[in-house]
């Protein structure tokens, strides 16, 4: 942590939810973020601050730039403008795996599991940096390796059990039903011990009962792991019920921020989703 300590911000900026996490350093602080692809400005002037135990949502019409924002936050793309601070540390120029070590984990809109591996192994890949064992030990399978591996298996099973996936631990990830794959991705992300987890359309392709279960699980993740959750979702039922704060983007810019009630009544949001009412002549 030392090499980054000088970059840590002393004063936390306001979070989406001002009451909660008031005196704590925000887990994610994005300032004036923007990216251009050639001449196209995909994201511009994006500001958001998320407290350490917040569940917040990012919504917007298709093509608004939501997934691009997630890709920026996880350094899949490098931003053209602005800065991203995770736990107070600027991620400028960092690679995806380094950003993950800082405490940001994610799932993907189009599921990206390691399809040929078992569900358990998928989670163990997530535990990779938690398994402390020198290369030579794992190359020769020395006793420290065996101990670390056994501990990793236990931890992975605990995490799978947490999301109700312990039964499918031995099955190939690619052969699992769609909804189960989505939850397995969440478990894999949780395995990296993040301080914020980004969920990209976690309920896509789920039926209503699965979605209800997912809402409970999202709350449980926050309550038990004490981490922040930032999610993109089109299912308004889930967003309005689970999220404590919501940001709405359109054409790569934030058009509204606030609690679910505020968002529901915001004229700009209604316009973005439903279009403008024709003015009567």
């Amino acid at each position: 942590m030392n090499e980054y300590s000088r970059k840590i911000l002393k004063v936390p900026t306001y979070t989406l939810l001002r009451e909660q996490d008031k005196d704590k350093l925000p887990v994610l602080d994005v300032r004036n973020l923007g990216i251009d692809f050639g001449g196209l400005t995909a994201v511009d002037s994006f500001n958001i601050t998320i407290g350490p135990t917040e569940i917040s949502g990012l919504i917007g019409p298709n093509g608004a730039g939501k997934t691009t924002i997630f890709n920026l936050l996880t350094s899949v793309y490098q931003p053209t403008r602005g800065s991203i601070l995770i736990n107070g540390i600027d991620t400028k120029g960092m690679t995806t795996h380094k950003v993950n070590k800082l405490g940001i984990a994610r799932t993907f809109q189009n599921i990206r599991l390691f399809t040929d591996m078992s569900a358990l192994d998928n989670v163990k890949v997530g535990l990779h940096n938690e398994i402390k064992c020198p290369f030579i030990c794992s190359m020769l399978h020395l006793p420290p390796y065996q101990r670390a591996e056994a501990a990793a298996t236990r931890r992975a099973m605990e995490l799978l059990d947490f999301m109700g996936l312990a039964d499918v631990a031995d099955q190939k990830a690619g052969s699992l039903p769609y909804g189960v794959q989505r939850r397995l991705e969440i478990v894999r992300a949780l395995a990296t011990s993040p301080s914020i987890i980004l969920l990209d359309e976690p309920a896509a392709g789920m039926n209503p009962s699965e979605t209800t279960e997912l809402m409970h699980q999202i709350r449980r993740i926050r309550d038990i792991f004490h981490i922040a959750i930032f999610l993109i979702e089109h299912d308004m039922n889930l967003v309005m019920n689970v999220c404590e704060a919501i940001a709405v983007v359109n054409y790569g810019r934030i058009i509204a921020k606030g609690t679910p009630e505020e968002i529901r009544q915001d004229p700009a949001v209604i316009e973005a989703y439903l279009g403008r009412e024709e003015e009567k002549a």
Partner: protein
Amino acid sequence: MKKILGNKNTRTNLVTYLVVIAAFVLVKACNSLDMLNSSQKGYLVPICVYISLAVSLNLLVGVCGELSLGHAGFMGIGAFAGVVIAAVLKDAVASDTVRLLLAMITGGLIAGVMGFLIGIPVLRLRGDYLAIVTLAFGEIMKNIIGNTYVGMDEEGFHMAISTSKMKLGEGGKYIISGPLGATGVEKLATFTMGFVLVMFTLFVVLNLINSKEGRAIKAVRDNRIAAESVGINVTAFRMKAFVVSAFLAGMAGALFGLNYSSMTASKFNFNTSINILVFVVLGGMGNILGSVISATVLYVLPEAMRSLEDFRMILYAVVLILVMLFTWSPKFKEAVGAASEKITGLFKKKKEVVGNE
């Protein structure tokens, strides 16, 4: 015990080890009963060498999915380093086995270090570009070794890249003399050591595949973006696999070098790299036992067909094509399946007839 055997991976690994041990015992038994002629005995060490090379290349090509065409380069580095070390330590170390071991380890280490140095620029590339650069590297290594002079006299160890710069004292001896290669090499290599090398290679590669590193490597191959998103440093993993692979190839090269009384650098050319790659591809990408078997069969095949002279390479090519058809072409598989069904059908009918009687 049941728990260990219950795991599919552990079971296949065990089978791999057992096959190699059984083959070793069988060959040793044949040898002690004088069933092998001298040319067959001559195959034994190279077979072990090529198995190790194929298995180590499989780690890179099959498991990591990185196409490398410079494996013979690492083999060459190991071979010449091994030859030099064996010659230098001749008076210092009495035991031939210890000397061979030291030569192999040094050969492996030097190849591993070279792998690391080359890996720094090369591993920024992917796919075809990586293949091209590794190919070039193999050729560069071949040419550097082919122009190096190494010698020893009373003053000690000399090394240069031209004869004019070599100033060997009286009684001095060349170990490697440029394009002429290494001459007067002591044949230290033994089949038992070859077996040990194969077992060591298998042990390292199989353990790596079944460890957290192996999981990470497979994850990177399966889905690079997802692997990075869970904190896996992709470049570091490619590097580790590259260095381990180079190290094992260097060890195999050292054993190879100490198996012949003379050797030139041209042995470690593009053809040898491709040959090793053929062993890997035909044995199955990522299939370690497959590499062991295909390396053995495909090494012995052209040697055994030497009596056919020019036709042997044609037959070798035909065998390669047939194996590819068998393993890859779905149409061919269908045709074979249909034919075998017909044959079994015939037998079944016969049985029924017999039953009716």
